[in-house]
């Protein structure tokens, strides 16, 4: 299994008796594209932070790629994330004072696998395959459109060839056209690199693109 959660319980940091997530058992198989939906505040982002190891799992077990995140030190989780998990959010995916190429290089610098096999040359084809024109590569991020920024964000998330891509409402700041191109580009890249996708959103209209659709309320006992 790519992701396995068992007996997980996440409480609010300020109020330890208030649960945000209570998941008995949930798993995602390799090469699935999973769409998790739920209303705002239902704990979707919390779920992704747990799976990516940003949030420490105090109760229960979280394993990704067969490795137990809850048994790892904070430092090892950081390294694991850099090596195996790509992350895209709704906004603020890029360091705004660096350009597209630099942002991608930055992501590469934290990974141990990096792209040593392919080197910096792999960044260009990646950006090209994401429909980012070469004249945008050296512009400051703030001069890129939202759609361009999100596509650069995917390139940044993919540069280390992660097995798992995690996306937190990456389309909600895009208009209809941009949303569709974004999703089709994303899906073809996931397909091409044989990756697993965990995608959360409250926008049910996107569900049709995925192999597996999951309501958060179906697995989370709190909601």
């Amino acid at each position, binding site marked *: 299994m790519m992701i396995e959660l068992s007996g997980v319980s996440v409480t609010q940091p300020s109020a330890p008796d208030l649960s945000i997530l209570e998941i008995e058992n949930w798993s995602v198989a390799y090469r699935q594209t999973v769409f998790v939906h739920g209303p705002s505040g239902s704990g979707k982002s919390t779920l992704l*932070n747990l799976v990516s190891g*940003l949030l420490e799992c105090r109760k229960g077990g979280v394993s990704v790629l067969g490795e137990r995140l809850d048994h790892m030190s904070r430092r090892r989780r*950081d390294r694991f994330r850099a090596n195996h998990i790509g992350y895209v959010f709704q906004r603020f995916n890029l360091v705004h*004072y660096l350009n597209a190429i630099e942002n991608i290089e930055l992501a590469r610098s934290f990974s141990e696998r990096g792209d040593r096999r392919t080197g910096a040359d792999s960044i260009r084809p990646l950006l090209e395959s994401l429909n980012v024109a070469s004249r945008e590569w050296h512009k400051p991020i703030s001069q890129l459109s939202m759609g361009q920024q999100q596509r650069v964000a995917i390139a940044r998330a993919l540069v280390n060839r992660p097995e798992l891509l995690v996306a937190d409402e990456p389309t909600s700041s895009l208009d209809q056209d941009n949303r569709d191109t974004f999703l089709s580009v994303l899906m073809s890249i996931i397909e091409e690199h044989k990756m697993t996708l965990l995608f959360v959103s409250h926008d049910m209209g996107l569900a049709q693109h995925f192999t597996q659709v999951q309501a958060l309320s179906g697995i989370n006992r709190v909601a």
Partner: protein
Amino acid sequence: MFLKIAIKSLLNRKGSVVMSLLAISVAIFVLLGIEHIRQQARDSFASTVSGVDLIVGAKTGSLNLLLYSVFRVGTPTDNISWKAYQEIAEGKDVAWAIPLSLGDSHSGYRVLGTTPDYFEHFSFGNKRRLAFVEGEAFEGVFDVVLGAEVARTLGYSLGDEITLAHGVVSTNFSLHENSPFTVVGLLSPTGTPVDQTVHVQLQGIEAMHAGSESGFGGATSYDQRQLEAGQLEPKSITAFMLGLKSRMVTFRLQREINDYSAEPLLAILPGVALSELWQMVGVFESVLRLISMLVLVAAVLGLGAVLLASVRERNHEIHLLRVLGAPSYYLFLLMELEALLICLAGIVLGTACLYLCLVMLGDSLFATFGLHLDAGVFTPDGLVILLFVLAAALTAAAIPSMRVYSQAKSYNVQ
């Protein structure tokens, strides 16, 4: 990549970064500048006299003796007899002796009566001898050798005739109109009180006093034959300097002179007396240091404040770097690196400004204050100061850095 992020992030916040950079530069400028001037002032102070083993005068305080014999400040309380001088100067351990007779002035500059030996043996700084820009040491009774500043401000040149007065204040009251002196030598600048001194022969002093005492008739009544016969031998002098054959005997001779039975004498070691005097100036020195320290503290606190203010606006960046796999300490170090870069840039800017100022102002400072500043800013002490500044900046930056660190560590759900 690490360095690149830090630099780009700083460039992205140019406004506040430049401000704190300037503050650091000013602090560096003040700190190094004051340290430099202090050092050089101390050096040039300590080098007002060198190569002189003992200074002997009438019994008084040792600072007083130093002040009037070397710095020409204050008035001697008493004179010493020519006989005592001769007796000590002829001692077997004495290599040379220079008599000094003070008490007269010319246009506000002190007149020093001495012997030609003065130009041969007196040295300053790092054993530098007095040098002549023009002319040579005096030979005749009415020959005058001028210090650099005297010649410059009064506009005298070789061959000019001048009148010398008895007493320090230049009034018409006791002008020795009848004793015209001729300038025969001009000394090169030394940065010591020598520059402000009018040098004449001991006999010249006697001649002008004799002239005034005998009323009209005056100095013209001395003819050359009398002068050469040494009939103008002084009865007393103010002080004298001794060079010894061996330094080993300095203390013994000092004791012997202090115990001299015929009249009360005091012998001092110039080096010891100079450092005693400097210690009195030391309070002023500490105040300057304290002020420059406070300027530094202000600048460093400003740096800390600028970084702290940036933490809030960098929330997304911190979160993003964590997501990319940056460990928490990476963010701590990033913040410290930014402080370090600002500080290094400030050091470069501040030192460069100081260097330029010293190069450009060096000559005029020397001319005005007799303070010689070389432009060598990079002394070991200066280096210690710069390291201290770096440490201070890193300490101040530790507060925002810790803030970023704990924010990165206690990751909260977005």
